[in-house]
């Protein structure tokens, strides 16, 4: 029994996703530990992004259950919820592989849009805010403070009023993470956050993720190809290949798992039989 099985923030149970005849994910089960940084790795086409899309409601799983356990004790069955409800109620936020910022809006506005739901309540669904009633003004100031807090974290406070599309790639990646954090998530899903970053930016990203884990009540699950990032910051690694889990454990364990080595590196021709025997697919 590993730590992530004791009090998981998200339990993925027998998740299966079929697109017509193609089975993208087949009977996948794993746990995401509370407060952990969990990495989901695997070769291209292994179904990692499909898992993300199922967790965040962009796909409806064909079979299986996704149980989100919030820290206040609420349980949410994600496979039954609309995508926006998953962020709003179950507190699962995500970023995208191809960055999806609101390019024509300023950096500050991007972070304000992320706080839409609490602000809507504070403005009595616009009516109170329109008439100048209630605590909308104060909530608005608080929301700007939250945005400023995250802008300081990602070193973009000086450019708060610049359009998001003007930022460099690495800054856009970090802004997208900050925007997701502004929704106040308990589980943050990052789809290849380090893709296209240079070593310095990659390091900054690591620090940001460590900070989020340490200072906020947020668990992180990330898809990553960059092994240095995975090995350095993750507490738990789940390896997928062809929609099936082939390994699950600590980074050390996964690194030395013959299944993983076979899936990633392949093996010599004369070792195939031996490895297949070990792996159990002969």
């Amino acid at each position, binding site marked *: 029994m590993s730590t992530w099985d004791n009090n998981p923030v998200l339990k993925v149970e027998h998740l299966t996703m079929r697109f017509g005849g193609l089975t993208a994910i087949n009977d996948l089960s794993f746990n995401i530990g509370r407060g952990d940084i969990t990495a989901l790795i695997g070769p291209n086409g292994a179904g990692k992004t499909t898992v993300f899309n199922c967790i965040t409601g962009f796909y409806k799983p064909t079979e299986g259950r996704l149980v989100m356990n919030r820290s206040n004790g609420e349980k949410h069955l994600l496979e039954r919820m609309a995508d926006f409800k998953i962020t709003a109620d179950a507190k699962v936020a995500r970023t995208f592989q191809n960055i999806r910022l*609101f390019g*024509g809006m300023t950096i*500050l506005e991007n972070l304000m849009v992320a706080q839409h739901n609490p*602000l809507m309540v504070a403005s009595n669904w616009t009516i109170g805010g329109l008439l100048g009633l209630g605590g909308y003004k104060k909530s608005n100031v608080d929301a700007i403070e939250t945005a400023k807090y995250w802008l300081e974290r990602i070193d973009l406070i000086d450019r708060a*009023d610049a359009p998001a599309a003007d930022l460099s790639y690495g800054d856009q990646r970090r802004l997208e993470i900050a925007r997701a954090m502004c*929704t106040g998530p308990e589980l943050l899903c990052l789809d290849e956050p380090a893709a296209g970053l240079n070593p310095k930016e990659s390091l900054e990203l690591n620090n940001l993720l460590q900070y989020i884990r340490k200072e906020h009540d947020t668990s992180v699950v990330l898809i990553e190809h960059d092994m240095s990032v995975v090995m350095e910051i993750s507490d738990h690694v789940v390896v997928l290949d062809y929609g099936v889990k082939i390994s699950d454990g600590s980074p050390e364990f996964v690194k030395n798992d013959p299944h993983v080595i076979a899936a990633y590196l392949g093996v010599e021709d004369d070792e195939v039989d031996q490895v297949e025997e070990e792996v159990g697919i002969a």
Partner: protein
Amino acid sequence: MQARKKDSLLVASVKDSLGAAVITFALACVMVGLRVDVASGRGAELFLEHRWLAVAVAVLVVFAGRLAMNIFFWKREDPPSLNLSGLLPKGGMGGGSSNVLKYGLVVLAVALPFALMFWLGARGSRQYIDLAILVMTYVMLGWGLNIVVGLAGLLDLGYVAFYAVGAYSYALLAHYFGFSFWLCLPLAGILAAFWGVILGFPVLRLRGDYLAIVTLAFGEIIRVVLLNWYQFTGGPDGLSGIPRPSFFGLEFTRGEDGFASFFGLDYSSIHRIIFLYYLIFAMALFTNFVTMRLRRMPIGRAWEALREDEIACRALGINTTNTKLTAFALGAMFAGFAGSFFATRQGFISPESFTFLESAIILAIVVLGGLGSQIGVVIAAIVMIGGFEFFREFEEYRMLVFGMIMVVIMVWKPRGLISSRTPSVALSRNAKGISADLVQEGHG
């Protein structure tokens, strides 16, 4: 290898222009110089006419024009850059630098009827005030549609349907129940918003072109229903005798209890026109005020975010269906207000006033002004509607010229006249507008 000697500016220009002149001569000889006509006097005999003067003029015009362009623009090493964009205000919605223009326009609008009365007298100014009312109506409609198209990025080609709903709501309520204008004004807005929601529910899952087609169809359905439901709406005969608005209960009539005698003025029909002018002015300002306020609220930001990227919105927990519906309903509501104003101003409405052409004009105003720009809508409405009416004497050429102007503007400024977006919230006081190149247009 010896480098080819470069001709001087004048020689090069003249050479180039001569070449163009020769080509023009060759073409014009046949196309302009010879003309075959049917002689009217001598039966139906064909005869050839020579028009060498016209050929000479064509060649000269091409030569002179090309020479001028060569000398001043094309062959120069430092061509003067013609920056017309600098002449236009930069700010988008309520931007800092466009403040002068904004308040200037408001002051102008307030003073307009009195200035006209002063110069032209009651009789002469009437048609201009009427025109100003028309322009204001379109400004209001443009501002209403700007919420849907400019902010939320939903392409609505059937906006006139809600205008029609507003107009007929008032006309029918007044006709069957005898309700007054002031009671019907909010009702018309609510009914139009209601129809906006009714239309919105099934269609807002559609995107882009599909949404445009469905809204277009909806606009036609409303018009066809109004046209054919003869017993209820009067069909093509329309509804007449729609009551005029009163000034806090004072009718604009000649009698004892009319507006004029109450204020001790001599009765004049211009009073009502001026009243209508200020009414639509106030309604348009109200539309603008609400829109500007909403833009700084979470719902307005959600609209713009929706225009930028719908999937990202959903990932941030925004209910996109509700957000789109509010934009649709609110845009429809302002069209409803404008519609009931239209009905009370005309005193007569028929389905003919609510054709697709109206939707197209309103959309053209919004696009020409710059999507999402409030002041752009005003300028575009003045140019389009004002221009439309002012150039009536050109008759059939009017539309031709109009089409050309629109093409030119769209080539010159593809994102509309005012093409920058003012941030809805900023940390620093002097935040700059966002160039339209970065702003998405929305995909429905």
